[in-house]
């Protein structure tokens, strides 16, 4: 299995163009598991699958802040470990909290945000955050560059709209003015696949509350009804929300989820869990009760 190790984005794009069907390898924390489990055919005999390793490409491993646009652009090869470091952690607190829940220190050192998107598991911990933030994903291929809304990239369980030979270059998210956080339920206290997860972000300037859920539908889902309801009941300046509104918000979130029963949990518990997390996240964002 030949492994190619380009050091520039241009080279990587060229190589992917020259080797249709090549596998992109970032941290390998998903891909190697799939290969070892035999879920990814790796070719045989005369036509071995080519692997293009992207972890040596400096452009993918950096991040930048655009103060004018109030955005952060994160290279696809930035690791969870790096997302936990300052100043990124303070700029994007929900992403840092989500990153902290990923695997173990070894996995956080190797695993990347781009890989999380590339795999597109409904349980991917970075994805509810990118969804709640309405991230824009920058793609590049021999055919050129294009930007997609993160929701258009995630099309199904472990399915993306990436075209063959297309690389995720980076992800742009807005710097919001307000509380944001991430919660994840699993059956143990660390290193666990999400049974259900939720990311809630608030923005004072646009007066919005947004919430995205993981592991309760084929892809990460947003909760438009709950968001619209929240916009009308929270006070962004006083950071208050009434108790009954918190309860209603939870119900609306639960109603959006479409969970299933599997060996990790039941649909009923998943629905219950997102309801509880939604309530608690909203309360964390708006700790006060209006007088």
């Amino acid at each position, binding site marked *: 299995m030949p492994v190619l190790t380009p050091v520039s984005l241009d080279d990587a794009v060229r190589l992917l163009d020259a080797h249709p069907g090549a596998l992109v390898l970032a941290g390998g924390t998903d891909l190697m598991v799939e290969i*070892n*489990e035999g879920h990814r055919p790796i070719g045989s005999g005369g036509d071995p699958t080519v692997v293009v390793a992207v972890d040596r490409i400096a452009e993918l491993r950096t991040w930048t802040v655009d103060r004018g646009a109030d955005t952060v652009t994160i290279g696809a090869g930035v690791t969870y470990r790096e997302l936990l470091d300052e100043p990124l952690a303070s700029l994007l607190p929900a992403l840092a909290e989500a990153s902290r*829940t990923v695997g173990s220190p070894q996995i956080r050192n190797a695993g990347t945000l781009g890989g999380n998107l590339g795999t597109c598991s409904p349980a991917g911990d970075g994805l509810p955050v990118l969804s709640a933030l309405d991230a824009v994903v920058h793609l590049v291929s021999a055919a050129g560059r294009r930007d997609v809304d993160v929701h258009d990239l995630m099309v199904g369980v472990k399915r993306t709209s990436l075209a063959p030979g297309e690389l995720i270059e980076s992800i742009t998210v807005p710097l919001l003015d307000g509380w944001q956080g991430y919660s994840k339920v*699993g059956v*143990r*206290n660390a290193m666990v696949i*999400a049974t259900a997860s939720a990311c809630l972000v608030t923005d004072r300037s646009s007066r919005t509350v947004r919430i995205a859920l993981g592991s309760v539908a084929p892809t990460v889902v947003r909760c438009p009804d709950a968001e619209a309801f929240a916009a009308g009941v929270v006070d962004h300046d006083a950071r208050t929300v009434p108790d009954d509104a918190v309860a209603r918000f939870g119900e609306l979130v639960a109603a959006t989820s479409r969970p299933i029963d599997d060996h990790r949990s039941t649909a009923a*518990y998943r629905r219950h*869990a997102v309801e509880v*997390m939604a309530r608690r996240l909203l309360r964390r964002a708006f700790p006060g009760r209006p007088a």
Partner: protein
Amino acid sequence: MTASVAVGARARDVVGTSPARPDGIAKVQGTFQFSSDLGGDGVLWGMTLRSPHPHARIVSIDVGPAWRIDGVAAVLTADDVPGSPTYGLISHDQPVFARDVVRYVGEPIAVVAADHPETCRRALAAIHVEYEVLDPLLDPEAAIAGTHPPIHPDGNVIRHQRILCGDPDVTGEVVVEGTYELGMQDQAFLGLEAALAIPDPGGRGVELHIATQWLHEDRAQLAACLDLPVEAVRLVLGGVGGAFGAREDISLQVHCCLLALRLGRPVRMAYSRRESFLGHVHRHPARIWMRHHATADGEIVKIEARFVLDGGAYASTSSAVLLNAITHTQGPYRCPNAVVDGWAVRTNHLPCGAMRGFGVVQACFAHESQMDRLAEACDLDPVEIRLRNAMRTGDVLITGQPMESVAPVERCIRETAALPLPDEPIGGHDHDPMRLPGGAGRTADEAHVVRGIGWGVAMKNLMYSEGFDDYSTARCRLADGQATLKFATAEVGQGFVTIAAQIARTVLGVDEVELDRIDTQIGSAGSTSASRQTWMSGGAVDAACRQVRERLFELVGAAHGIDPLRLAIDGTDVVDTAGELRVPVAEATAGVVIDETVEYHHRPTEELDELGQGRCHTAFAFVAHRAVVDVDPELGLVKVVQVATAQDVGRALNPLSVVGQIEGGIAQGLGLAVMEEIVQTDGVIRNASFTDYLLPTFLDMPPVVASLVEEPDPQAPLGAKGVGEPPCISSTPAIVAAIRDALRQVDGVGRRLDRVPVRPSDIALERQ
């Protein structure tokens, strides 16, 4: 002070101290050779084809396409087994390869050998097996009721045993009952199954390097299947990374040897994690009904119980596990009357057999849950109810067997109760959200969390039971001030290699102790299981060293004209207890070789009769656990904050090793309490990986405060009881009781939580 006193006073690694393990540094640094590291040039790889169906008839097997793949050296099926087509620890009911029928998902059908694991995988994929899928037997009750046709010539019931004790008709003023369930737990050792088989020229014999728990039992079963004389099969212990019962049954041993003998070339096999889940036996899932009768004061009058253990497709040790389960119905409590009915049955689930705790884990979850219910019904504290019923030496068990072991049950409970409770508030002094239930997932705030306390107390038999003579052999050779020990005791991580040397240093007054290779070039040591090796192999090493010492005293006595009976070991010297003589052992043994081999047998036991009466067990140990648990009731998430324990260890030969067993066992008990379970749907395992079979992490495992109750047992050769199993037995019910306690504080409602592992949904969604 004289020089000799100074030497004697030097800290020596004798019994009662905690020297470092001889293999500790290598293991930490990664240089220790585990069985999966075995190999070498020209060694072929072996791999197993397994059944995808829980129950099917094999219509045909076409191995032709596998042979046509480049690099494939052998493809073997049931037709290629020269000797016994089946094997097993108690009854030989498990085929080396399925021939006509497969009985569980993962049952071996064929093995291949090839130049590379990838070639093996392709060869396996090329073998064509045609199946006629049959109706699987998945409900143990159907096996008992006889409503499902036999899935094996031996029938669907592996063992049915009753216990009838005292008056079956008495009743108590207070009656509590419940039905308890335990899921299937995996031993989850980290060192996966692996072996290297090296054939003798001409196929006259074979040497197998293997991670196992019992070299000689493997050898006997292997020789029968390979149709070789027992002496022609030589086993050498490969580096073992944990066992917990999963290495008692032979798994890849026969396959690996068959390939090596057929090819006349060394062959190695190594399981993946997924294959490991399929390739070894597991803890029996159980359904246990219990009814306790007591006086209004909470004194147990009678226990009624019915046990159903799902043995899976093959018998393995199911009959012994059932015996253990039902004979521990009463737990560490007096019980004058009992009616117990126990079944171990065959189904098309994964085969079950030995796992740390061996049937007692199942019984204990039921009897401890019952004790809490009894406490509630009698309006007593959980500690008080247990103290009132605590067993003592001399009490008679429900099998009629008198309790002859030291039985410090009351002391274990009181010492546990005296251990400090955690001084940390919920979330810790530093208000770290990671310390709340949900951990890194940050699901809870402190206000969402309640703390509970729960108790569990257990009795566990030590050594084998029911007439089994599981003796142990050891050899000691003393020459030039150095002792060399040889035994076939499987070192699986428990630390026998450390204490064997400590025993020799203590008895012989030497500092240099060499351990010979662990293999079958000496008599059996019995299995590293049933908490037995410190007692049994420790007893054998101690006895061999003592015999050597007697001979040494004879030599020294003769040389100095002193009655050998006056001689003793003091530090590293031979001294005359009634005179002045003091000779260093090194000097006394210069140019001398003393060599003794000893077999140590425990006292005989007997089988149970039809009414479940008989002195079936050898000895017992006891333990108490108190768990403190923080619970997020709404999400059903749990964080165990502390486990306190006082364990009856007889005598701690190596206190650090004892604490290691205690902490590890509690981690395993915690796993069963809140997360560890093999999930099977329609007979198909759904979580054969550590992604989905969850083990406690560092963040799940609480600090353990342990008190070692040392009352040397006069029956034990060194006063020391086995310590391996008790920690994982009552820690599980203690944690579940703590969860119930926390939930009761929320709304005053007593939750049953009568199934382990307790899932978040059981806490969050269960309404009773």
